[in-house]
């Protein structure tokens, strides 16, 4: 206990990461009926947590990985420790989570104002932040898994926040169930590791894997099973359809979900035990293929939707696919760096979209453009910054991380991955600028003067109130836009910071290129982004453009993309056929025939035998008594004589 108070690092870790949980408890129990106080508690707690995270990052910037742990479970060969593991990766992620959650909560002050579930919203936001922060600094895989599930739970609450809306509660359920599918694999992988290795500590695991301490088959099987968890959480190929549906939650939730928490958890876990994955080439090859397929599929989906949030949702899926590709190709730094920059600009994009949606009460980018979306100067500039970063244009952060990823892919012997990466970059630039041009240069100019006048008068009507709400939303957005500008130039320090730790645990596969390796790659990367933007300009931006997109000439392909490659329909059909048609009907039959039939049979037998035996007696009480007395008398006589 003494060490707890004298060690500022431990104190900051424990307090910073657990304060949001306390705030959730306080809100749910005490201040639910007082929204003003609730939001202050929640924002205060998360701001403190963000400060603690930054403090830890600064304090431990050049220190070696720090570990606090106690033995939690010890039985024979099985050792499970519980504690904190502070290495560069977890510190970086902790800072991202803390800062982004803090900004999102400040933004929510404006976005959610007047909502009946205001207190509940902040309680769940706190729960989300708490779970994610604790997952990031977990010292063992089991602890990580526990908080991983807490993150899933919190996201379920927040996606289904408008629970009175049918589609929202369905979306929450879908996210939860699809995550369970992946988590079953994750948990089986952990059990497999416990049986084979007996220790779930993250540093121990990485050390053993990188020094050939694990047999290859154990490693491959458990790596693939654990990768199932990544697939579920980070919405990779077979399980990618829950993330677009998760749009049913409030927009700040989507921002949080898509940038720093939830989906980032999958990629984070991948990089957390990167040396472990890297020791199994087969698992890495499968992960690379899955990442590529995910990236291309979801990019194509984003090309046809008109829903503002859905475009960014698909783009998140494709960027996650890109991170998985980078990690699976051996680019530890490239993957983590892209995770960092992506957290910044994706939160930015979602929060800007939230301002548009809040202002125009629609998700359709065409209507927003028509009603004068470009008049909102601050969000318009910020969303353009975010889209430029996403497309990988030079001074913005996305450029640097995308170059790093392409560099890693170029190092692969098979060039098909690199080609897929370029193709993905083109698609990304195309769909993000399709959206920008839709809002900035709407078809037939800005129309609807009466609409505008109406909005204007409403604007004046609640002027003071509106101003507070607008600035609560605009300030986080501007901060994030600055971050997206600056983060790219911090590549060298971050790389040094991260790889410093990797050298502490020798890793074999790391072959970093660092972006500046080859000039042609740089040119190709930039030109891929610019080419996508140019195509989008040709179709949506220039005067007299058709604004339909080239895909509208191929209705079949449009339909394919619009229906998300029929993945959902396939799931629905196979659920109906195999689960509801096969398994469930078998269970129903078992229930009806075997269990119900058995109980009915027993009842029937009891009743029938009762009927048979009732013939033996007359129902005359006194005859029975007489017989009884006579029998007793006979017994007395027998014993007496």
């Amino acid at each position, binding site marked *: 206990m003494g060490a707890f108070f004298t060690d500022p690092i431990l104190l900051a870790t424990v307090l910073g990461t657990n304060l949001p949980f306390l705030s959730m408890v306080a809100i749910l129990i005490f201040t639910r009926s007082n929204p003003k106080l609730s939001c202050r508690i929640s924002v205060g707690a998360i701001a403190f947590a963000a400060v603690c995270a930054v403090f830890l990052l600064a304090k431990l910037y050049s220190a070696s990985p720090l570990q606090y742990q106690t033995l939690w479970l010890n039985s024979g060969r099985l050792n499970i420790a519980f504690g904190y593991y502070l290495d560069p990766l977890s510190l970086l992620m902790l800072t991202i989570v803390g800062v982004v959650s803090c900004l999102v909560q400040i933004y929510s002050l404006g976005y959610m104002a007047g909502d009946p579930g205001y207190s509940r919203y902040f309680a769940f936001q706190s729960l989300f932040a708490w779970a994610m922060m604790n997952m990031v600094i977990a010292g063992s895989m089991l602890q990580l898994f526990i908080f991983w599930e807490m993150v899933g739970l919190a996201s379920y609450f927040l996606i289904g926040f408008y629970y009175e809306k049918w589609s929202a509660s369905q979306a929450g359920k879908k996210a939860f169930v699809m995550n369970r599918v992946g988590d079953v694999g994750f948990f089986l992988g952990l059990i497999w590791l416990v049986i084979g290795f007996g220790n779930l500590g993250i540093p121990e695991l990485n050390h053993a894997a990188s020094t050939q301490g694990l047999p290859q088959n154990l490693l491959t099987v458990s790596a693939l099973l654990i990768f199932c968890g990544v697939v579920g959480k980070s919405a990779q190929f077979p399980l990618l359809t829950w993330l677009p549906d998760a749009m049913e939650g409030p927009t700040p939730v989507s921002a949080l979900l898509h940038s720093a928490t939830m989906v980032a958890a999958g990629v984070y876990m991948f990089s957390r035990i990167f040396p472990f994955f890297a020791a199994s080439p087969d698992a890495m090859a499968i992960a690379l293929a899955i990442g590529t397929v995910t990236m291309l599929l979801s990019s194509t989906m984003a090309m046809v939707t008109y829903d503002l949030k859905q475009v960014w949702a698909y783009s998140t899926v494709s960027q996650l696919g890109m991170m998985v590709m980078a990690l699976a190709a051996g680019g530890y730094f490239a993957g983590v760096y892209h995770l960092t920059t992506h957290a910044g600009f994706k939160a930015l994009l979602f929060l800007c979209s939230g301002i548009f949606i809040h202002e125009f009460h629609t998700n359709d980018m065409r209507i927003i453009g028509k009603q004068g979306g470009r008049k909102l100067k601050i969000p318009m500039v910020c969303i353009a910054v975010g889209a430029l970063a996403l497309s990988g244009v030079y001074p913005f952060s996305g450029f640097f991380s995308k170059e790093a990823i392409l560099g890693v892919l170029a190092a692969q012997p098979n060039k098909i991955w690199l080609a897929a990466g370029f193709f993905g970059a083109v698609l990304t630039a195309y769909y993000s600028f399709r959206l920008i041009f839709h809002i900035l240069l709407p078809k037939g100019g800005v129309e609807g003067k009466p609409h505008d006048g109406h909005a204007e008068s409403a604007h004046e009507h609640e002027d003071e109130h509106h101003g507070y709400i607008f600035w609560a939303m605009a300030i986080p957005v501007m901060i994030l836009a600055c971050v997206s500008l600056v983060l790219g130039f911090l590549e060298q320090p971050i790389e040094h910071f991260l790889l410093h730790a990797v050298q502490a645990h020798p890793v074999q596969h790391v072959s970093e290129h660092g972006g500046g390796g080859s000039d042609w790659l740089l040119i190709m990367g930039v030109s891929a982004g610019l080419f996508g933007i140019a195509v989008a300009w040709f179709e949506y931006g220039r005067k007299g453009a058709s604004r339909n997109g080239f895909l509208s000439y191929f209705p079949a392909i449009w339909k394919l993309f619009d229906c998300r490659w029929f993945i959902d329909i396939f799931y629905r059909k196979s659920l109906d056929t195999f689960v509801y048609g096969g398994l469930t009907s078998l269970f129903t039959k078992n229930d009806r025939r075997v269990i119900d039939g058995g109980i009915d049979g027993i009842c029937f037998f009891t009743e029938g035998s*009762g*009927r048979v035996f*009732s013939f033996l*007696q*007359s*129902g*005359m*009480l*006194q005859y029975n*008594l*007489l017989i009884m*007395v006579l029998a007793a008398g006979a017994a007395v006589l027998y014993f007496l004589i």
Partner: protein
Amino acid sequence: MNSLSTYLIISALLFSLGLLGILQRRNLIGMLIAVELLLNSANLNFMAFNRFLTPDPVVGQVIALFVMGLAAAEAAIGLSIILALYRKMHSINIERAQRLKG
């Protein structure tokens, strides 16, 4: 006269009377009274044995008190059953209760 056998004979007589009543009467209230007779004969037995055979004067009396309490409870339950039967069948004749055999 003042000997154990006198009391035992009286008690046996009471018991026989009770047995006769319970076997012969068709009226449920009558049967209940006959049961009370049976219990009282047993009580008399306890008291007599206690008085003449055991040195400890309390045991038999305590048991007799218990039996009285039991008899009260039994009478309450019996009467309520009879009432319920009467409501159902408008009679307290035991032969009507034959319908209960199912």
